[in-house]
């Protein structure tokens, strides 16, 4: 896993190096953002802007403010400014399709950034979401190859909760079949809420009389509730707990040892990769020739398109430094309350 990420990162670095050196400046890369209400998009934007401007190209952007209609108008105005590539973070992946058609008609390349829209001409760049569940199960299996597993799933109305669970099941299939791993509790958590996860974990521990050896929680927020429930039974730290999102508090728990892993989707990686791909497209490189591109047809309508699926980073005790280096978290935040000598990054 780690090897793959490293190659990908190395690839990204290579592309950026070559693009600045070889390619002509003066291209225009535009982005239509769906919203800036959530903080993460600002991180993405900074990463894209950095790469684009370093290449001597121009960066343009619009903010749809959470409206499909505004996004359609935004894209029209971007088209009229004749950029070479438009990256689109679609607010509505169906309603956006006519706008994407207009982009193609104007001879401009399009990239579906993080949110998929099914247009065969577009390049789709995102994190491998199904993979997150797999990584969670793999990391857990490493430390607990046998034992009683509890599954704290997300909201039942969110398809991601089921995707993640499917990913876990793929990895655990053999262990479950052979009886090495037992599924002792499996519960959805209304609204992905930490306090609901805490109550569910408490009931799981009560019903199994603390007979739980590992907990696969589908995100970091719920992991905080799971850890609190384990702590009440004195079990926090000895029972591995998974999570995703790279929550600052979760990374701190990883350092403290109460959480095994937080799968982190580094927006900087995503932004950098997308910006490099955009520059490559602008310079006339064929999408299929861009490193990391593969065919993807896992969308709603099974439309086949070119895609780059980045592997998310599992943050464990051993590689917290990665998140610190990326500026995602400060050393003080990550290492608060950590005993000296237990975590490499905190020394």
């Amino acid at each position, binding site marked *: 896993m780690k090897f793959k990420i490293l190659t990908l990162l190395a690839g990204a670095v290579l592309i950026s190096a070559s693009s600045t050196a070889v390619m002509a400046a003066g291209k225009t890369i535009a982005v239509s953002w769906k919203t800036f209400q959530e903080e993460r998009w600002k991180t993405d934007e900074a990463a894209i802007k950095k790469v684009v401007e370093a290449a001597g190209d121009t960066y343009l952007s619009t903010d749809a403010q959470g409206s499909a209609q505004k996004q359609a108008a935004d894209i029209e105005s971007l088209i009229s400014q004749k950029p070479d590539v438009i990256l689109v973070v679609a607010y509505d992946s169906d309603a956006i399709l006519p706008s994407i058609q207009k982009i193609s008609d104007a001879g401009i390349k399009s990239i579906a950034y993080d949110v998929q829209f099914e247009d065969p001409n577009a390049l789709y760049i995102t994190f491998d979401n199904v993979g997150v569940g797999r990584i969670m199960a793999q990391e857990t299996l490493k430390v607990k190859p046998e034992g009683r597993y509890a599954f704290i799933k997300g909201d039942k109305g969110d398809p991601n909760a089921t995707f993640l669970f499917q990913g876990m099941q793929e990895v655990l299939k053999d262990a479950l079949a052979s009886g090495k791993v037992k599924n002792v509790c499996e519960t959805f958590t209304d609204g992905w809420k930490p306090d609901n996860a805490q109550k569910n974990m408490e009931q799981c521990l009560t019903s199994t009389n603390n007979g739980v050896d590992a907990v696969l929680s589908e995100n970091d927020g719920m992991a905080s509730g799971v850890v609190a429930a384990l702590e009440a039974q004195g079990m926090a730290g000895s029972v591995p707990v998974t999570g995703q999102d790279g929550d600052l*508090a979760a990374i701190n728990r990883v350092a403290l040892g109460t959480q095994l892993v937080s799968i982190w989707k580094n927006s900087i990686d995503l932004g950098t990769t997308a910006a490099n791909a955009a520059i490559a497209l602008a310079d006339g490189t064929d999408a299929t020739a861009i490193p990391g591109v593969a065919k993807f047809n896992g969308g709603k309508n099974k439309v086949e398109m070119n895609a780059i699926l980045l592997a998310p980073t599992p943050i464990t005790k051993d590689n917290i430094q990665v998140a610190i280096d990326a500026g995602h978290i400060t050393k003080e935040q990550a290492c608060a309350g950590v005993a000296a000598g237990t975590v490499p990054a905190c020394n």
Partner: protein
Amino acid sequence: MAEQSSTGGPAASNEGPISRLIRAAEIDTRMLGMLAAMLVIWVGFDVISSILRPGGGGLFGGSFLTSRNLWILLVQTSVIAVMTTGMVLVIVLRQIDLSVGSMLSIVAVATGVLQVFDLGPLLGVGHPAIWIIAVVFAILLGAAIGAFNGILIAYGQIPSFIVTLGGLIAFSGAAFLIASGVTVAPMDKTFKLIGGNGPAASIGPLWSWALAAIACIGIGVAIVAGRRRRLKFSFKAKPVWAEVLSVVVGCAAVLGTTAVVNSYLYPPRVAERFALDNNIPIPPGVEDKSGLAICQAADKVVSCVDGLTFQTGYPIPVLIMLAVGLVMTFVARRTRFGRYIFATGGNPEAAELAGINTKRLTVTVFTLMGALVGISAIIASARLDAATTALGTLNELYVIAAAVIGGTSLAGGIGTIYGAILGALLMQSLQSGMALLNVDSAYTNIVVGIVLVLAVFVDQIYRRRVK
């Protein structure tokens, strides 16, 4: 009593011995009904869980009626129960507060940010003043937001439904902005005790029994004093046997609850760490100091520390819930403020004409509601050991549902504090019990929804019959 509209109905000429007994002892029959329903639910869960997963050690062989589950149930109820005592008064006043969930978010997040990002670095992490400042801050912030709601409702004359619906939407947005959406953790280690996790977060068996004894004496003194006063004014008092029965039943309830919370022992690993920390000798047979190897090999974790037993007693959040319940009952029944709330809820115009400043009253009630949300926010974030925007979401619905299941009339003027707390306990029993049985939360939601409607329906029939 002002709010006991259900007790002491008109004398029926041909009542049976049981109804005569109930009348003489002035028992709230509605509450009896709720307790009976609760009993059925509890026994039902225990029996079903004994079938699904035998050997839970509960009263009927399941895992519901165990001291552990009941202890946790009380802790789980506390957040909603504290808020619902305030919601009763709000609804009695013919108002509604839809913003309590979002208010809880904003208070929890702001208090978390204050203690983790501001006070921690400023005073040093773990400074003994942090939790005090955080608690005071949370209650004041809650009260301030409540007062703001109240002023808009009373003086701005905007319906409370609208004001608090706006609050429901706006406060959660504000909570997100305060911490830019990140989860704030971990809480101060003393503050965390308010959530009820860990040995120091419970008062232990001795204090629990002492409190129970005080409560028993309190019940006795209150009943004797009340009786004396009635006799002094030569009113008809309840028959002596009814008074004695009240003391016995009340005392038995207190002692029984205390026995249950005391018989919940420290979880094995907590017990072991506690023993190591406090230099308590670990009895022979428990060689493994880390507690890991043996515990994992054994089927039951408990077996690795047999002989090392510590009783937990009342956890702090439950004590807070009980204290809030007592204070709020006192406020509702024994103070002018409470009387005015009920009178205003019964007939706002009449209250105004009687010289009650109903505007100020409204502001005060919403302020009190806010302060209680502050207390709940403290318990919720301390218990989770983290503050997030998600904390409190949808709580307004559970708080209102608990009040309504507990007999509060949305038409205003009628409601009891203890009823609402029982309502919260009943609802949490359903949720916890079904989680214990590993029932999909979709079904739990369906059941809770049905119980809410059923409770109101039964209530209507009951009230019609009493009339």
